[in-house]
């Protein structure tokens, strides 16, 4: 039920923003469509798992995103420095590192993998169970993994 309400809310906001019509006809059309979608595919958008409250996940992600944005900017400047450096080939040292994560939930692992890919200098190649393969551009880029990012994701999404 909870996932149905959440799906319906997200879909309705989406409808209103995209249609931009506020008369009764278009709004009721949207409500009917969103009800149908929420009824048929409520388990697609939100992972139905009653052990973890949805609100806490959203709050955790909202608290985590600003830090991620800051990290993206910092890492982008590092990559920009490498790319614009005249002797670029001496700065880079591409390699693959593997490490095990202590994150348990699939959503937390996906968030972690996406965050690693999003911060320049590192790309998540694969996630097999709890083993991450990360392709890094420099030694200093891979040295900080898993590190603070994993701790923050654990705080945001893992049960404490």
């Amino acid at each position, binding site marked *: 039920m909870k996932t149905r309400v959440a799906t319906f809310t997200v879909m309705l906001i989406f409808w209103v*923003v995209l249609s931009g019509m506020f008369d009764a006809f278009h709004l009721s059309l949207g409500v009917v469509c969103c009800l149908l979608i929420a009824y048929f595919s409520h388990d697609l958008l939100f992972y139905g798992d009653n052990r973890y409250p949805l609100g806490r996940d959203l709050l955790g992600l909202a608290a985590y995103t600003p830090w991620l944005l800051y990290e993206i*900017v910092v890492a*982008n400047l590092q990559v920009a420095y490498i790319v614009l450096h005249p002797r670029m*080939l001496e700065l880079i040292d591409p390699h*693959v590192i593997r490490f095990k994560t202590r994150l348990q939930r699939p959503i937390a692992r996906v968030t972690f993998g996406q965050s690693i890919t*999003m911060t320049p200098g590192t*790309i998540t190649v694969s996630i097999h169970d709890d083993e991450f393969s990360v*392709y890094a*551009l420099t030694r200093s880029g891979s040295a900080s993994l898993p590190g603070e990012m994993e701790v923050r994701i654990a705080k945001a999404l893992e049960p404490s």
Partner: protein
Amino acid sequence: MTILTILSLIPILLGLFFFLVGTIGILRLPDFYTRLHAAGKCDSLAAELMVCGIALYNLQPFNLANLLVSAKLLLIGAFIFVVSPTATHAITEAALVLGVKPWKRPEKRYP
């Protein structure tokens, strides 16, 4: 030049800078994987900055229609935020599975 125009110019110009760096990176870096770093990363930040800048610029004159257009622009930004790393990850794994050889740093460049 209103204040909003100047405020929106800052992220747009920053985004242009990162797009430029990403392009230079694609041209300069030695192999497929390292080029993905430049392409996938600088581009995602650059695209975000430009979408935000354009959304700000679009708010003048301030009315409901422009607000809706800006909201749509921000939605595009949110989608890029999720989709871009997913695509980078998929391309990298596909290349590794197909056996594209990564560039290795030479042991000694200057004898």
